[in-house]
């Protein structure tokens, strides 16, 4: 069984992004970029399936600028077998990403695709569901447990109020939640080995996918700030403030 893992290059989660003063977006030059944390979890899950003898090959794919190949190298260093870079400098929305991934899947024919539940830059939380829709496959989103069971996959999902388990016919789509696993760090020898693993380069045009955005970003602004309040000296002072000043208890 082949497993496909889409990985996205995003601003590192430790970076506090700044809005550009002219309102055209956020400052992305000279900031540290990393693999979307949920995608690391997706790569890890695919590798565990391979180590368990269930997956035969793990293929990572990224859609983005030339530098997205660094993100693919990270996936390869973790243990993925090969990479596909669909190179574009354009802004690609989740719907366009899903269309490109559908075309990649038509060529690669994986039985399972594992994505992150959301990318921490746009926080759209859409791509996996859209891809499942375009393929007519079942979707196990926000997964905290994934068990392959013959021709099906059992996915335990984090939902409001608890957990839900669904059974999906393979091929299927899974998106990862935070507690599915703890991703491994790439070891130095594996980082060296990854340099020799193949990365195929493709383009959206080559797949015949129109990536023209459907959403027009008019402005990007700083959120309304919150000013720091006061430090109180004691519990009784706090209770008095909450009661008399804030009126919330």
């Amino acid at each position, binding site marked *: 069984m082949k497993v496909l893992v889409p990985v996205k290059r995003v601003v590192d989660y430790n970076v506090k992004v700044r809005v550009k003063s002219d309102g055209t977006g956020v400052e992305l030059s000279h900031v540290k970029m990393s693999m979307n944390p949920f995608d690391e979890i997706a790569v890890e899950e695919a590798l565990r399936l391979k180590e368990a003898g269930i997956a035969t090959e793990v293929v990572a794919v990224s859609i983005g600028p030339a530098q997205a190949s660094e993100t693919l190298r990270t996936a390869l260093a973790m243990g993925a077998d090969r990479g596909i870079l669909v190179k574009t400098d354009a802004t690609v929305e989740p719907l366009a990403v899903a269309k490109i991934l559908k075309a990649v899947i038509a060529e690669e024919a994986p039985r399972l695709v594992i994505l992150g539940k959301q990318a921490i830059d746009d926080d*759209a939380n859409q791509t996996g*569901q859209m891809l499942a829709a375009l393929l007519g496959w079942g979707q196990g989103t926000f997964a905290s447990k994934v068990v392959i069971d013959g021709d099906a996959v059992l996915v335990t999902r984090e939902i409001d*109020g608890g957990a839900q388990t*669904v*059974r999906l016919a393979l091929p299927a789509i899974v998106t990862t939640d*935070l507690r599915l696993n703890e991703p491994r760090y790439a070891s130095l020898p594996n980082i060296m080995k990854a340099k020799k693993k193949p990365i195929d380069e493709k383009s959206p045009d080559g797949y015949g996918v129109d990536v023209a955005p459907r959403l027009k970003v008019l402005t990007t602004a700083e959120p309304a700030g919150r000013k*720091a*309040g006061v430090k109180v000296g004691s519990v009784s002072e706090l209770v008095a403030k909450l009661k008399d000043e804030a009126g919330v208890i």
Partner: protein
Amino acid sequence: MATLLLAEHDNKALNGVTAKALTAATALGAPVHVLVAGQDAKAVAEAAAALSGVDKVLLADDALYAHRLAEPLAALLVSLAGGYDAIVAPSTSMTKNVLPRVAALLDVMQVSDIIKVVSPDTFERPIYAGNAIQTVQSTDAKKVITVRTASFAATGAGGSAAVEAVGAQADPGVSSFVDESLAVSDRPELTAAKIIVSGGRAVGSKEKFGEVIEPLADVLGAAVGASRAAVDAGYAPNDWQVGQTGKVVAPELYVAIGISGAIQHLAGMKDSKVIVAINKDEEAPIFQVADYGLVGDLFAIVPELKSEIAKVKG
């Protein structure tokens, strides 16, 4: 044409986030129809019909929708979409699962988690964990929108819409329900609570959550939240997580106990009306957003706070 609002419920009761999303749906300017998809969910449909400004309630009552799996529910929404300019839903784990599937089937780019309706095609939404607010205009003929309910006030009662039955659509047949484990709690839900008491890594154990955090929540009639670190360590269940990748809340009062204030946590609570922080490190970033900060050991402060509040509440 009209706007279709997908209701959030548990087959028995309409979830309060629906009335908040209704406020956003109404702001689009067209009549609003509410879709209740469930099993034995008549009471839910009646509750939706009683909300002010609802024009009509569609009830799809069928075993196929008992657990609102994405595949059959998306098929139902797509079958209805022809009659609507916009499909709107409160942002919940259910709608986050199903709405992008609907959007892709309609070849529409969804607008996720809107916090403001600027005009019927233009919306504000947070990106980068709320560190930037984007104003986006959708060029799609049909809009598919999820609503961050913490940003909208609930629409009140006062409606008397008709409830109309709609038939089930064929099951795409790629998914089935296996089981569900839902926490039962007498406390209010995080997304509906007026007061939230949250604990972080510093609480130290599940037992301490029960001994220190939960009693304070109970005297306040509050919901209990947690940081990701506390959830990852197993001190609190997954769905208590507040933050960028957990729940986004905006209660009247948010009490952060032993939480440092990482941007991912702030993303989930910084729109709360009043924030109280209790932390032993006076430099902790949480104090930068707190209205009232108390520096000290939570294990000494929180029990004292509980008894002081109990006294005030008489």
